[in-house]
């Protein structure tokens, strides 16, 4: 252990990983302090990265030079572009991860990073002099001097797990919470609040009757998250869809009198977009079934995540209800669902750089700011790491605008909107949604990633090449045109209206049913453009 660090990151979750890697890669002497080295990069909730709007965040993290997209590309077992039937602005990549592989990969990257030391300990307090962070207190006694401290504590601050009326002090299933840090921050004048989130039971994959479930196959070929990944190597798995029924609902109802939610035991506010199954049957009592999404957690991990069945009902009710789901009659529960309540710090207390307004050199990222989700956490971690490093190097901060990136929307919302429930990204939060596509994150942000010095040169060169190709393509189609006799047979094929006179490609491609690649072929023009380049036009 060194005597002195530039930047200390407290927490080894998805925010902590990005923060620590960014800081170290920007040349700062960095320490990642985590309770357990072998839980770095753990996916504590569902085993998936991306999803609607979240996939955009991951692509942006990648364009700035973050790590998340690369880890999931190396460890994903089910890739899918969501919303393909809608406009390209809201297409979003999602991938199921092999949970253990993801964690191991993240640890490998972190442990092999130059300038980055990993310390197994709990940050329990901080030392502040003249409103400036000067050190982190670890394990209640030792002080590690530092110039910046990034807190990425997830759900660990005074975490409490609820299963039925049982309350366990815990930061995550089977792990100890962090006590004392909230109190230290409150003593410094910060205001804290309480939030709640939940997770469903995990069941053994061999105890499922797949014949009663509906299969959901991944995209073939899988589309990677990272602009730097050539192709996905890992073997792919299917997900499965199941449904609840009135019997399941009846069982769940028998447990409501022992629900920590409905008995008022839980005070923290939970996310409305991710309600527990008991919440769904109470609030939408007229619905006789709810969809469940069974996500495999990997090859050498038998756990299956029952997405949609998040619950904090007592054990007996969880088992009875789950086993009433067609296909899960013999399900073996490996881990029970639970609700977790934790401290957060309402995020009007931070600047757009994620530095706190109260204490210089102190940064908050992830669930401590009231967000939920790996991607939201990683995006903040990356920006906190970058900004802490830039500040120590005496360089101007990186603040992304709402029109530039979902990350900009995320951080701006955190600061300017009241957070009443765990904050999750939605495409509807972005007023420039039409411009912020996942496939143009490179064009939008790689200049910045390259300028800061996080993005490898090769990735940057590739983006410049893509930009040049797009410009060439745009020029081509504004010059070339098609005669009616060339276009009309194709138009008839795709039920498009015929043309009367020669029209430029540029005009024809505006028709939603027309394929640009086909137009290029008809005009006998050189193709060789990638899908990403075509879609840009």
């Amino acid at each position, binding site marked *: 252990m060194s005597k002195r660090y530039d930047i200390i990151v407290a927490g080894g979750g998805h925010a902590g990983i990005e923060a620590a890697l960014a800081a170290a890669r920007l040349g700062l002497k960095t320490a990642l302090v985590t309770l357990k080295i072998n839980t770095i990069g753990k996916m504590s909730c569902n085993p998936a990265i991306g*999803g*609607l*709007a979240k996939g955009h965040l991951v692509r942006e993290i990648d364009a700035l030079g973050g790590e998340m997209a690369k880890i999931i590309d190396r460890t994903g077992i089910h890739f899918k572009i*969501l*919303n*393909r*039937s*809608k*406009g390209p*602005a*809201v297409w979003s990549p*999602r991938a199921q991860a092999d949970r253990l592989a993801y964690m191991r990969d993240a640890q490998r990257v972190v442990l092999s990073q130059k300038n980055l030391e990993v310390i197994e300990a709990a940050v329990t307090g901080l030392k502040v002099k003249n409103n400036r962070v000067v050190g982190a207190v670890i394990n209640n006694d030792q002080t590690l001097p530092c110039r910046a401290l990034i807190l990425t504590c997830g759900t660990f601050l005074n975490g409490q797990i609820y299963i039925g009326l049982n309350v366990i002090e815990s930061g995550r299933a089977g792990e100890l919470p962090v006590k004392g840090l909230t109190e230290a921050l409150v003593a410094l004048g910060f205001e804290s609040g309480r939030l709640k989130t939940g997770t469903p039971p995990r069941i053994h994959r061999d105890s499922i009757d797949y014949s009663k479930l509906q299969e959901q196959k991944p995209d073939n070929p899988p589309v990677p998250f990272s602009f730097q990944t050539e192709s996905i190597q890992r073997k792919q798995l299917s997900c499965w*869809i199941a449904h609840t029924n009135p019997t399941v609902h009846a069982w769940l109802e028998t447990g409501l009198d022992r629900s920590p939610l409905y008995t008022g035991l839980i005070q923290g506010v939970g996310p*409305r*977009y*991710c*309600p527990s199954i008991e919440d*769904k049957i109470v*609030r*939408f009592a007229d*619905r006789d079934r*709810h*969809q*469940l*999404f069974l996500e495999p957690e990997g090859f050498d991990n038998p756990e299956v995540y029952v*997405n*949609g069945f*998040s619950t904090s009902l007592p054990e007996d009710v969880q088992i009875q209800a789950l086993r009433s789901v067609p296909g899960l009659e013999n399900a073996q529960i490996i881990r029970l669902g639970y609700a977790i309540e934790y401290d957060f710090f309402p995020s009007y207390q931070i600047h757009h750089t994620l530095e706190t307004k109260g204490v210089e050199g102190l940064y908050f990222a992830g669930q401590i700011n009231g967000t939920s989700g790996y991607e939201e956490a990683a995006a903040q971690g990356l920006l906190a790491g970058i900004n802490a490093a830039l500040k120590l190097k005496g360089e101007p901060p990186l603040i992304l605008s709402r029109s530039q990136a979902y990350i900009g929307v995320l951080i701006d919302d955190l600061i300017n*909107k009241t957070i009443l429930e765990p904050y999750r990204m*939605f*495409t*509807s*939060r972005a*007023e420039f*949604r*039409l411009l912020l596509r996942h496939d143009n994150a490179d064009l939008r942000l790689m200049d910045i990633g390259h300028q800061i010095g996080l993005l490898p040169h090769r990735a940057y060169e590739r983006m410049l090449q893509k930009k040049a190709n797009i410009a060439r393509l745009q020029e081509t189609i504004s010059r070339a045109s098609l005669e009616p006799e060339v276009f009309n047979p194709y138009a008839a094929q795709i039920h498009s209206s015929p043309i009367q006179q020669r029209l430029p490609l540029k005009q024809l491609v505006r028709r*939603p049913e027309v394929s640009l690649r086909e137009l290029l072929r008809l005009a006998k023009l050189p193709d060789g453009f990638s899908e990403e380049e075509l879609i840009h036009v």
Partner: protein
Amino acid sequence: MKIWDSEDTIVALSTPLGKGAIAIVRMSGPESLAILNHLFDHQVTSRDERRAITGHLYTPKDRHLIDQVVVIYYRAPRSYTGEDLVEISSHCNPLIIDRIIAAAIELGARLARPGEFTQRAFLNHKLDLSQAEAVASVIEAKTQQSLTHTLRQLEGGLSKRLGEIKQEMIQITSLIEVSLDFNEEEAEIYHPSELLRHTDRVLEAIDSLIGSFAYGKLLHEGIKLLILGKPNVGKSSLLNLLLKRERAIVSEIPGTTRDYIEGQLEIDGIPVQVVDTAGIRQTSDRIEEIGVQRALEQIPSADLVLALFDAHAPLDGDDQRLLDTLEQQRGQRPIVLVLNKIDLGIRPDTERKLTSLELPLVPLSAKTGQNLGELKQAVKHIILSDTAVENEEIVVTNRRHKIALENARRSLQKFREGLARGLDEVVLAAELRSALDYLGEITGETTTADILNHIFEEFCIGK
């Protein structure tokens, strides 16, 4: 940026200036109670909230008696402005009022800017924007009908109707947003044909509000009615008849009205500004010529022209000149031909000639008042012809509201067309947002949070 300073206490006279029985000076802001207590010979406390207290006001330094007054204290937030507010009713003498206001200013209040009490009520969410705007309209309403509609707006009638429309639009937006943001399995969230019908209903509701504006404008702004005719054809008599008083000097001598004369009247609740002009004729009198010129200049700003002709005389050169002028105006503004002096008889050739012009024609005697009812009926019929039903519950009287509604309608219409053509939902959502933004110019902004709230209430989100 701070929009206004809530630290400020403001003071102003709320009743009209001049001599009268009672004047009310209003004071609003955090210091208003303290300032009052400094001047008043009673100690008013929060227990005295909304009670009328009689006492004496004294100047702050030398304790000179200002007046005997009645004071009412409204405690925040239960006041017009939502702040601590004091109303002082004094005798209405400008000297007294000046001293009360000067004393308040001496103790730290400042003179309120015009409309500032209502501005504060708006900023404190006591009134929404359309209600705040209604305050001025209520004060300025010229007729009973106009007052009824602006009072309805003040009560929140328009806000309520707009709120309903906004809610419908949020519902439509939610369906699109759910489909975009919460639909990983890409199920069908709505039936396009149903959504089209829903949109049509909202468009209809907006249309009916926009349609009510013409009537609202009539009630609010009224119309300008111009009386034209050659000298001595009875224009001033008609003006007096309409106004039921001797406003204009009526004489046998042609050209008595040398400039124009205005008067206000009301036809079925619609304020009408009547302008009587100098008679139009060829003249060598320099002053009279200016009058004629002015009369003609009035034409472009008139909403309705009453052209008077002598019923018992043949049409002469001056009449013909007027008819030529009217011919140029045909189609640009409504014209009613008035065949005046029917008490003296009607010449068939005059009547025939005027009838042949195919313009509304009313025989009248401005002297006896015969057929006045018919004339009013004709005027009313013309001015209401292109407005919506007059007993419409909610009427848009404000031009800004009408423009916002038209913009919202345009965006919603684009959404409708896009939906029908199967356009990208992301683009459709953008149109809906802009429709909501336009509506928000009247009702206040619709935020993403409002839409998400609706989604979470209505849809079972989360797998």
